């Protein structure tokens, strides 16, 4: 599997939840985009988390949003035409809550013009078997990429992913916990340049799987981007760097 097989125009992508539901008119980095990855989409609508927040720490930030989205069908109604017109291939990031939902969403997306791949986000807290069943259910006619939070790369199911026709793993934002100012705890996804070493550990450990790897976390510097591509990453996904800009 190479970037041609995934119809990527370049190895530089956005991470899901960084760029909304439709390709932006302006790509803010000086590296040409290779595809557009949608905001995470569930089958049914999801409201924002009640305690949604962003908390910063040195070199990163925690984002807790509840992944709000209008649900697959409302999203298609609003954005499918823009996906069809997009000069970039569109990967739809789905967040099903069950294998049946995964299969239903994938079957529907196979008929949507412009969609060239599925990116699967797995709910936290599933067992190894449940993760594998979800992945199997999401396998359809479109290439499937599985989003793997880097804090979970040692889980047993990851090394069995290759038994399904998966096109690759995306090393994505890990989860973490921080205190709010009122000392209550909040859990969310972590982003930022401080995560690069953790991502690199996962990247090197997972090369033995033989699966194509997309590095989608901790990339804020040109040098790091080129280093992971030279080390065999199929592509890279930018997260917070799209909002802040790359560091020198």
């Amino acid at each position, binding site marked *: 599997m190479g970037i041609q097989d995934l119809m990527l125009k370049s190895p530089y992508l956005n991470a899901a*939840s*960084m*760029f*909304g*539901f439709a390709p*932006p008119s*302006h790509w*803010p980095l000086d590296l040409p985009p290779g595809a557009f990855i949608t*905001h995470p989409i569930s089958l049914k609508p999801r*409201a*924002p*988390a009640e305690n*949604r*927040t*962003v908390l*910063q720490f*040195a*070199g*990163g*930030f925690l*984002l*807790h*949003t*509840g*992944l*709000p989205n209008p649900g697959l069908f409302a999203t298609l109604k609003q954005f499918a035409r823009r996906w069809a017109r997009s000069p970039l291939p569109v990967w739809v990031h789905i967040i099903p809550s069950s294998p049946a939902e995964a299969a239903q969403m994938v079957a529907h997306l196979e008929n949507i013009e412009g969609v060239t791949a599925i990116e699967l986000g797995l709910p936290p807290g599933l067992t190894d078997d449940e993760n594998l069943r979800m992945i199997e259910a999401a396998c359809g006619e479109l290439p499937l990429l599985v989003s793997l939070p880097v804090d979970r790369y040692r889980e047993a199911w990851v090394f069995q992913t290759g038994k399904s026709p998966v096109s690759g793993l995306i090393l994505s934002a890990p989860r973490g916990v921080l205190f709010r100012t009122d000392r209550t705890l909040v859990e969310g996804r972590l*982003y*930022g*340049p*401080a995560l690069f070493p953790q991502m690199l550990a996962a990247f090197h450990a997972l090369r033995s799987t033989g699966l194509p790897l997309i590095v989608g976390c901790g990339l*804020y510097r040109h040098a790091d981007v080129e280093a992971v591509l030279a080390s065999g990453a199929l592509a890279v996904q930018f997260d*917070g760097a*799209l*909002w*802040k*800009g790359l*560091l*020198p």
Partner: protein
Amino acid sequence: MPIVNGTLLEIRFTESGLAGLVDCPRAVRPGPGQYLIASSQREEEALPVTLFSMSLPDEPLQVSPPLPAGWYPGLTLRLRGPLGHGFTLPREARRVALVAYQSPAGLLLSLTRFALKQGAAVTLCSTFPPPPALPEEVEVLPFSQLKEAVAWADYLAAAFAREHYAELRQLLGNHLQERASLSAEGLILTPMPCAGLGSCGVCAVHTRAGWKHICLDGPVFSLRSLEEAP
């Protein structure tokens, strides 16, 4: 949307934190209630910073506190703006009430100056000390006189954090409903990490028209459009 480089020319310590003076092209300068985002090359800061203007368009750009503690004069900033929907001061407004609730009154300073420029009388009710740069013509009222200010005004502009809206709403009581003709807007302060790029949802606010993004649809909203707990 232009992305340009600017320079932080000076910083000032205020009671609300660091404020600053930014040298930047006119194209990115925000109007009252609008914002721009600024990123430094400092590795510790993984997110851009939201900046609100305290200046008139033809003046150097004074940005309201709080700026990051690590910023220093001479720092190069990557700027994107102007962003969001700002205040819409009616041309006919002649009695303008400004309300800064648990937030720096400096956020309303550029609006203040626009209001004075069009000949309006301006009062400020703030829970924070008035900013040093507040024009002398502005009458400063204790916050306990909020209801009198609302009763007097023909335009009201408020600034408050999202989590304080319910309290402010309670303090305003029935005054907004009783003054059906009063144009009332609120600048909602909340983190806007994607600044409209990502629909990330952190700044989502519930309005009478459903969920909106403060970064895109605001940060200024009609106070009458907001639900009780935004």
